[in-house]
């Protein structure tokens, strides 16, 4: 029934198509990209700094440093997908846990957690992320690559999820079927997991989709500002590299930029579309 609504919702469909394409690109990139990630091949083979659409071996052009834009976009797709999805997964896991605790057990524990959540909302998160990213790099040295970013984003992304989860749990736990479960003798754990969590999935799924979009965008910003990992392909990295010659080799900035816009748009549309499709309609 929700699937039918999903199909009819244009945003959801377009979003779904874009996201699928994005995932496809990432996977394709692993196997079929013309060049390996971060390969300076063209520097040694005379095809550096090629404009786009001139050479079909390098359809989107190459950087002055020899990096092939098309190749990097494919590899970057994987990188950004990794960041987006895994960071979101971490945030959701933490967020649900915190939200469940704060929402189900009303009382001081809940109030404290709510307070912490609200503090997180107020912090200038980007600055802090950049700070941690730099510190992390200095302390832990190379090799961690994107994982560091993923972990940091995950840790800073949980408040939204927790907040929504808490609200939803507080709403659902007052519904009669929860009371019915209590009257049957169900334990609190059972009620929480079997009844409540399953029923709050919809808004969490929607939020996750939007969070993925946000995480990708944040990654782009981090890498663009130079706080990312220069040895792993991401779109942000491409944008950073292209920045210095944006007037001459503009294609290095343009195509990754378009890719970012489309990917973020895709996840946003998907999130919106899911919000509509999964919206519980009150049946007569």
């Amino acid at each position, binding site marked *: 029934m929700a699937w039918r609504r999903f199909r009819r919702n244009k945003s959801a469909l377009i979003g779904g198509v874009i996201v699928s394409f994005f995932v496809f690109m990432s996977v394709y990139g692993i196997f079929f990209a013309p060049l390996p990630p971060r390969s300076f091949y063209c520097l040694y083979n005379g095809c550096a700094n090629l404009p786009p659409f001139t050479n079909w071996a390098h359809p989107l052009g190459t950087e002055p440093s020899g990096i092939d834009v098309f190749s990097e976009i494919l590899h970057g797709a994987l990188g950004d997908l990794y960041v987006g999805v895994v960071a979101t997964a971490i945030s959701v896991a933490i967020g649900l846990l915190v939200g469940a605790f704060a929402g189900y057990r009303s009382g001081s524990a809940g109030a404290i957690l709510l307070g912490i959540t609200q503090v997180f909302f107020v912090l200038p998160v980007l600055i802090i992320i950049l700070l941690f990213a730099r510190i992390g790099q200095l302390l832990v040295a190379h090799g961690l690559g994107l994982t560091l970013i993923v972990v940091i984003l995950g840790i800073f992304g949980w408040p939204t999820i927790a907040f929504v989860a808490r609200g939803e749990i507080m709403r659902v736990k007052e519904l*009669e079927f929860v*009371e019915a*479960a209590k009257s*049957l*003798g169900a334990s609190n754990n059972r009620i929480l997991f079997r009844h409540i969590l399953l029923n709050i999935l919809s808004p969490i799924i929607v939020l996750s989709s939007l969070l993925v979009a946000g995480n990708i965008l944040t990654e782009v910003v981090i890498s663009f500002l130079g706080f990312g990992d220069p040895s792993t392909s991401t779109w942000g990295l491409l944008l950073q590299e292209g920045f210095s010659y944006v007037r001459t080799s503009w294609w290095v900035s343009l195509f990754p930029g378009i890719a970012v816009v489309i990917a973020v748009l895709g996840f946003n549309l998907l999130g919106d579309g899911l919000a509509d499709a999964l919206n519980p309609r009150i049946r007569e």
Partner: protein
Amino acid sequence: MAETLLEVEDLMKYFPVYQRGILTKKKVGDVHAIDGVTFSIGKGETLGLVGESGCGKTTTGKVILELEERDSGKVLFEGKDIYETLKTSSREERLALRRSMQMVFQNPYGSLDPRMTVFDIVSEPFVIHKHIPRSEWEGRVYSLLKMVGLEEYHAERYPHEFSGGQRQRISIARALATEPRFIVADEPVSSLDVSIRAQILNLLEDLRKRTGISFLYISHDLSSVRQVSQRVAVMYLGKIFEFALVDDLFDHPLNPYTMALLSAVPIPDPERHTKRIILPGDVPSPVNPPSGCRFHPRCPYAADVCKNEEPPLRQLGTGHLVACHFAEKFA
């Protein structure tokens, strides 16, 4: 008379009312939801509990099942105080007690988890109590569905595929799954269409006669209460005003509130013209109940004693209890 199954003695339940400050909240009063309620239900009997909004009838049902905790008073099930049992006994005994007392809720659209199939819903008691071997579940679920007038193939469906009346049947099947001896039915038909109500009411009566389960039938619809109850208790602002055999209460009420309540119910017969007793004012708030007899501000017979002294619930005639200073006048 039948053996007593459940006794409620001087039960009280207050809900605190807070005023929110910036950081803290201050208690400013209490809602006297139940303020000293006493009655009993016999084996295989349906007790109808009636009253208007705020009288405490739903809270009474919940306190009896320990879904809300009492503040004082006793709830004796088969002679044992259930609150003692739930606090001190072993897990086995506690689960057994839960199994013997079940509830059917008012809202057929909210009382079933929309993400569970009918089979899951009706078999959930088995999952929780683990008292029936897995191999028997299917058979039991099917026979429960049949008992409430549904079919076996309904078991695979989800609640949203059913009508309100059918959902109530599923709720009843779930309540029966633990083989309870007592069921609290809280306004089970109020949300249903008029022509469907009779189906569910007849089902409850039928179940009572077949299985000997006792029912506490909570409702504001007096006509349906007359239909299914053997005895009736009338509540007002947390107190029991009258308690009697059903025909005695409906034909010879001894409390002015009961009389007003009965006269207010429209009868589907244009030839019957009931003399309406129209009560002035609104149902008062249970936060600050009137002094003395709680009904005195609206009672057409109120005198000074009614304002100052609360009338005790006393016996007047066989099995007829009433709380009114002037009950003899109406006998």
